[in-house]
């Protein structure tokens, strides 16, 4: 037995939270999840690093805990065993236990001290986001290296929007390349041209969404217009970067035939750099997380499309494009 404790795994990091981590000597990024064996986020078996913070506020966001660029408290109610240690230990008295078992958090008062996280053995009380160095992230990414070799996989930085933390992202991408890893990013491309150019220099595959082709509608749905996004995609295509374009297919938002045709036409115009278009059918799996953050889900009550509807969209997109798939 070695008896040597190795570097903390991502999972072990969830047992405690320290806001001071952001003041480490090296550059840090705010990471809200690291998922191994990701198989829909670039080729092969990959490790998916989720960076926190996003310039968009898409109404269907499946990772609402990623939107804010700061750590935030989140409570998963069904894991709670009712020990109320969180209430007792909170120095800010931000956590209240109500009759009938509901727990409320006063987010304005919470100082993110992490006491409740440490005491909640069941994992119901969490703080989303950990400040990590590139080295911390790479230690986790390296663990699945053998799988990247046998499956032609690698590392994918996702979000949130990874380019919101450009310094950290570029450092991490460079480090991954230096270690011989294939790199991908999942990005909304809403970022300055300069940053975009600096980031994609170190990226082997860009996975990016087109939410809507109509700029005004895009703004209604996501909070920003689409000019910069489409411009950045053209730039990447002109640079010959590998692109996979994805359309999150949201009922009543962007699934009309006109938009599908316009999207596929635009993607076609990007030329050979685009290796394919993925249709990502709407799902509701993010909804509980909105509630866990005390936020209201804008698409509450919207049901997923059925298989036939999704296939119809695929056929429509295929009028302009060869390689259209469903799912990543």
């Amino acid at each position: 037995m070695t008896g040597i404790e190795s570097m903390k795994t991502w999972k072990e990091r969830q047992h405690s939270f320290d806001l001071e981590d952001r003041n480490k000597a090296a550059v840090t990024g705010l990471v809200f999840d690291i998922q191994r064996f990701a198989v829909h986020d670039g080729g092969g078996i990959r490790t998916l690093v989720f960076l926190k913070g996003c310039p968009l506020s898409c109404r269907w966001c499946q990772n609402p805990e990623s939107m804010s660029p700061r750590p935030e408290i989140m409570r998963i109610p069904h894991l709670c065993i009712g020990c109320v240690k969180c209430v007792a230990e909170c120095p800010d008295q931000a956590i209240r236990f109500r009759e009938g078992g509901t727990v409320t958090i006063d987010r304005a008062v919470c100082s993110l001290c992490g006491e409740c996280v440490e005491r909640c053995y069941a994992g119901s009380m969490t703080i989303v986001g950990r400040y990590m160095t590139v080295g911390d992230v790479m230690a986790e990414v390296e663990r699945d290296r053998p799988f990247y070799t046998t499956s032609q996989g690698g590392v994918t930085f996702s979000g949130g929007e990874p380019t919101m933390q450009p310094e950290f992202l570029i450092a991490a991408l460079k480090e991954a390349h230096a270690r011989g890893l294939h790199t991908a990013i999942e990005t909304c491309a809403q970022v300055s041209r300069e940053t975009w150019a600096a980031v994609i220099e170190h990226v082997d595959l860009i996975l990016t969404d087109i939410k809507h082709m109509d700029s005004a509608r895009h703004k209604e749905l996501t909070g920003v217009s689409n000019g910069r996004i489409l411009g950045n995609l053209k730039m990447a295509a002109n640079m010959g970067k590998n692109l996979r374009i994805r359309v999150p297919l949201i009922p009543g938002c962007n699934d009309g035939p006109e938009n599908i045709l316009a999207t596929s036409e635009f993607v076609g115009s990007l030329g050979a750099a685009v290796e394919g278009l993925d249709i990502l059918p709407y799902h509701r799996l993010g909804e509980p997380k909105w509630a866990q953050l005390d936020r209201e889900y804008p698409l509450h009550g919207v049901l997923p499309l059925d298989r036939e509807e999704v296939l119809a969209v695929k056929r429509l997109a295929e009028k302009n494009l060869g390689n259209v798939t469903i799912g990543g």
Partner: protein
Amino acid sequence: MTKNPPVVVIPQLVGPSDRIKRVLDRFVNTAPEICAERAVLITESYKETEGRPMPVRRAAALDKILSGMSIFIQDDEIVVGNQCSMPRSAPIFPEFSCQWVEEELDRLEKRTADVFLISEETKKKLRSAFEYWKGRTTNEIASQLMPAEALEAHNDVVYTVGNYFYNGVGHISADYAKVMNKGLDVIIAEAQAELDKLDFTDPEQLTKMHFLKSVIMANTAVIKFAKRFSDLAKSMAGKCKDKARKAELLEISRICAKVPAKPAETFQEALQSFWFVHLVIQIESNGHSISPMRFDQYMNPFYKADSIGSEKAQEMLDLLWVKFAELNKVRDESSTMAFAGYPMFMNLIVGGVRRDGSDATNDMSFLVLQAGANTKLYAPSLSIRIHEGTPDALYKKAAELSRMGMGYPAYYNDRVIIPALLARGLEREDARDYGIIGCVEPQVGGKTEGWHDAAFFNMAKIIELCLNDGVDKRTGKQIGPKSGRLEDFKSFDDLMASYAVQTEYFVRLMAAADNAVDMTHAKHCPLPFLSSLVADCIAEGRSLQEGGAHYNFTGPQGVGVANAGDSLTAVRKLVFDEKKLTLEELREVLETDFEGREDIRQMLLNRAPKYGNDNDYADDIAREAALVYCREVDRYTNPRGGKFQPGLYPASANVPLGSVVTATPDGRKAWTPLADGVSPISGCDTCGPTASVLSVAKLDHEIASNGTLLNQKFHPSAIEGDKGLENLKSVTETYFQNGGFHVQYNVISRETLEEAQANPEKYKGLVVRVAGYSAFFTALDKSLQDDIIARTEQTF
């Protein structure tokens, strides 16, 4: 050996024919029954042969059964030969044990798993037969032979030697190829030649005489049995109005008159010869896990020499697969809890390397996998050997089959298993020629008496005993050595020392218990037919049971590696390292099964690292916990002159073994199941399949040469499309490059997800893979889980 996979041409593969669909339909609509014929016939025979040498009595009994039992040929059958008076029915083997059968006769129709119909007439016949066996069964004799404390530890389920204590041994692969290529006539001639050489004045040679005579009697009985089918087919043909069927029956009649006595020539002859051997082994003794092993290797030459084409050959194979599934065995009710689904564990393997080290893939490898896909039956158990030169095409075919969700094929790693067998003394070519017995046990066929399921050793019970000074908390009895009380341990090393003391003591008793059972089989239940098909029994003049095989082993399994490892890890981390918990507190919560202290249970579950997450802290301790067991087992020798060799797999014993163990420091509640095989505890592998297999690969799989078992679950979303097949291959390949032994995949079904809804704790690690999304299945609310369940069987 080439590192570059050879180019293989995939034979044309066809789906199930109409004939197969009819036969499968008939199969699923046939209810298993109990058949009394074998029990009645063997009892009569034993009464007739009192006082004669035991091998001769066994051969005479086999002859009586094969001559007297009902035989039939069903519509559409091409390969013929039945085990009982009705298809899917189970015979009774009173010579091994029958007390439980008698006690449970009225329950067989009423129990929840593996129900057997039984008529009042059959019950009457059985009760009358059982009278003769009181005090004469191998079970009763072996329990007299066992040291009292070894029997007690078995009864307390520190280990269980139940398999061979109550049943025949089975767990073997005969030399099928020899029968197909040379015929039983040649085996009879070999036995006669040995007989002719004997000097009867030498007492030892006189003993050999009885065995060799029994071989001739048994083989002659089998040839007569085949002849009965020839006659039956002929008479059926005479009455058959359908021209095509009439021709088939006449062909069956011709073939059964020829094989297995003479060498097979056509593909159908080879299948028929194979089947008679496989069938009679089941009738002679009631052991399960009689394994055909490298079927593609010995069957392919007959296929290639025949001009029937792949379509016809596929249909014959598919029909044979149904014959496999028709073989049946009745187990006692408590065993059915662990072995539900009428399993016979007949392992059939394809691929790997040849005896010369080159890739062994051939047409039959593909046809065999296709037969699994066409029949979707639970038998035979399909396996595939993987080496550096396994062709992509075969890998892909196997992955497609895995994805169908039947749980097979199981994958085996030549790169670990061949060296492991070499280290156990197998000659190089024999090691390369290995196949798999039963669940996961490697051996070379036709040369080995491996006694692979010798015992299940309860590693979680050892945890209980090592924390409690050797006291069984369930019964309050002092059953182990006084190795220290929990609150006396000053360091983690003290705890490990206590674990080692208890393991050493009980492995020793287990070895004694196994050897007592082994000696009983040798003296009271030699098997002349089976022995004649395993080298060197004829040359040595000794039955398998007396050590006549070329290689001899005894393989007891450790069960609950993850529970033992995670329990030790939790104590080390939370008590000794972090001092979050005192030993007194720990003892208290374990004694009260965490009553009112769910917070501490959550601490044990979530704040100590768990095996299965690629966390070295936990993985190193799990490895050590397994090694302590494996090294102890390594020390012992069996009465057949062979070595003990450890395995780490549970069959399904993790359920009954868990039912006697109190709460453990891994956060497991009292009396609940243990982890399965070398798999992590269900729900504790929360970092996904890559982390899980890297953890498991850290165990020493080479020392556990009797086999280790990893079940890996996937949600269909993770393995959809061609990309999914590649990912499945990558997981297998990486596990094997890192030293894994065996892996099989379960595709999560609607039922599993529904269970995860009901028992979220056991499925904490279950991730539904969606692009760019982050959450666990159990973190979703009910309506969303329902969405996923609805999508599970309909992946886009």
